[in-house]
């Protein structure tokens, strides 16, 4: 259930302004210290009557390797809802710093094919702030409903980590399970990601987080090089799973080692068939073909 009360925004917030504001907030907190916030802001943010830009949709579909159909890829809906989610993270009373947050994973449920011409209502809120062995993690929920009848058509939960941030009253979990040993399987595909991969995805998704744009902007935030957007990688994997998936599906991804650009990424997509022989699920895992380090893994499951 989404929390009350709702803050209705007139339009989709500008992501570039949100990032500027986030930088200002970060600077202010560094100077003045945090105000000791240790709880999530109540309520949710909403934008009503959102319609996708078809030119942007086509560019997105081409970039991630989907055919330019009228149905929007699930990753594009994530990008459509992202400004609303960001406006929640960007609130003055949000306890964790937005810049430098690490995207740990994403869970999406898409209930049906969603056409670009549909009017959509988007709402987002934060929930379940909890400890992590490396800091504090939080879930940002986004829900997309058809404006005409209010049915839920898409729901995404993004799991973020504020690394090195420990808030009073938020317990660190136990040392936690160590990462499983990963032995790369035989790849079914290999991606060549150019140094401009982050900039290209920023253009179609609107996510201009500096860690994705250039080596310099990434260095300013403590990374040695720019990294690919997690949602770009996951959306490409979803595109590679292809049209075999049903119209209603669940799509999960867990991010591990970031993909520093430029990069080669090896990928395995395995299909799990139902007893009747139809498609049931596709599992994917991606790794660095040189080091064998796992970048991300996930699955697409029919609903």
């Amino acid at each position: 259930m989404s929390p009350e009360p709702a803050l209705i925004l007139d339009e989709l917030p500008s992501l570039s302004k949100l990032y500027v504001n986030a930088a200002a907030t970060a600077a202010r907190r560094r100077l003045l210290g945090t105000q000791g916030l240790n709880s999530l802001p109540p309520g949710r943010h909403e934008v009503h009557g959102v319609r996708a830009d078809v030119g942007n949709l086509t560019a997105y579909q081409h970039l991630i390797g989907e055919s330019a159909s009228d149905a929007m890829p699930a990753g594009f809906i994530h990008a459509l809802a992202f400004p609303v989610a960001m406006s929640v993270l960007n609130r003055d009373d949000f306890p964790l710093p937005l810049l430098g947050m690490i995207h740990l994973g994403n869970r999406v449920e898409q209930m049906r094919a969603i056409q670009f011409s549909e009017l959509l209502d988007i709402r987002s809120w934060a929930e379940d702030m909890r400890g992590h062995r490396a800091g504090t993690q939080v879930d940002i929920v986004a829900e997309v409903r058809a404006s005409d009848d209010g049915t839920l058509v898409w729901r995404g939960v993004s799991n973020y980590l504020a690394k090195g941030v420990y808030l009073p009253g938020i317990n660190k979990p136990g040392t936690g399970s160590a990462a499983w040993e990963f032995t790369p399987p035989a790849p079914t595909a290999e991606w060549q990601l150019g140094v401009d991969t982050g900039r290209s995805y920023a253009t179609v998704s609107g996510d201009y987080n500096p860690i994705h744009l250039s080596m310099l902007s990434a260095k300013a935030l403590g990374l040695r090089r720019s990294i690919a957007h997690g949602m770009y990688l996951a959306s490409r994997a979803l595109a590679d799973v292809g049209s075999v998936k049903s119209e209603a599906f669940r799509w999960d991804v867990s991010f591990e080692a970031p993909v520093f650009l430029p990069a080669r990424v090896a990928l395995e997509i395995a299909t799990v068939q139902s007893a009747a022989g139809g498609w049931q699920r596709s599992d994917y895992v991606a790794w660095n073909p040189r080091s064998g380090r796992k970048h991300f893994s996930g699955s697409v499951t029919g609903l």
Partner: protein
Amino acid sequence: MPAEEQSASAPQQTSGGHQPMRRAVVVGGNRIPFARTGGAYTKSSNQDMLTAALDGLIARFGLQDERIGEVAAGAVLKHSRDFNLTREAVLGSALSAETPAYDLQQACATGLETVLGLANKIKLGQIDSAIAGGVDSASDAPIAVSEGLREILLDLNRSKTLPERLKVLARLRPKDLAPDAPNTGEPRTGLSMGEHQALTTAQWEIAREAQDELAYNSHHNLAAAYERGFFDDLITPYRGLNRDSNLRPDTSMEKLASLKPVFGKGLGTEATMTAGNSTPLTDGASTVLLGTEEWADARRLPKLAVVVDGEAAAVDFVHGKDGLLMAPVFATPRLLERNGLSFEDIDFFEIHEAFAGTVLSTLAAWEDDEFCRTRLGLGGALGKIDRAKLNVNGSSLAAGHPFAATGGRIVASLAKLLHDRGPVDGRPARGLISICAAGGQGVVAILEAYTAPEGR
């Protein structure tokens, strides 16, 4: 009346004489609305549009995960990276990934030729089902580097040392940087298709008003077909378009008469071809589902029409013997003769409107006693077509003409039309399709309303 006289498509003995040849049935079709170039599909690639048309067909006939015998389609303006265009569209569609596909290219006859080739495979027993199609984008057209730059780049790739590379690069001249865009000119004559047709239009003395009238009828017939819902099960909306964007339901003879001529202005005769009676550059895609009777029955799918026969022809347009777009004039009598038919046996004529002048020159040639005797080897004029049977639901002047997609548009529409018409004088309704193509080529075909064979 013996069965073979009733229906040109009744099962025939094969040359081996072992078993009756199977029939290739048109189950249905699907296309996306055609869009004028630079319009709603500007950013959509050929692969996008073909996949969209294919997915609409799959949804309409419940073909998800189905392994189709073979899919054939093509594009006239094709990027070199799209060498496997049709297979890639299949992989991006909801069909089984185990569906084979091939690309075909015969200029504007591409779409019709995919139907004929696949129908033949079905008749021969090689496949039980097939999807024919075509797509073209004049908006997302390929642009190549100039011939000079291409040679330099290839030589650069072959050179091994830095001095060698610098020597190759030193050959680069500013003019090499100008890109090489496709054009509609014939390589051997340098004349555009419109200028070629202007020669033919003048040769057959086709009046401006007759051309405008054909364009007027095309728009009004297409608009009326949309109004009565004829295309409801033939078209899937795409990128916000529900109808062909070139369609002008309110066009009038006065409006058409007000347009300035664009082709044939230097011929010494009155220039008659305008933007109104010539087809505009268009983007779009179409598909047609074919199968055996058994295949359709097993899936409870409709059987609209039978692909009876087809014929290709070509003319020597290079040295002016015949007009560039006049090959169907030669193909049609050969096709009719082989099937023992005359114009009297045809209920619908679908003559692709590359230009109004093309259709009218074609009709004039068939009505010309001397031409039919000397050039077609007939006893006299092939005949006059009842205009009430011509392009009754509009054609390319109104719908637009994404080159390779036109054949699929016509086959699917005609199959439905024939099915709706049912029997005529105790025989199945028949339709003739005529499509002219660049290079002086043309492909024609006969379709017949489906009727169950006796005893079924």
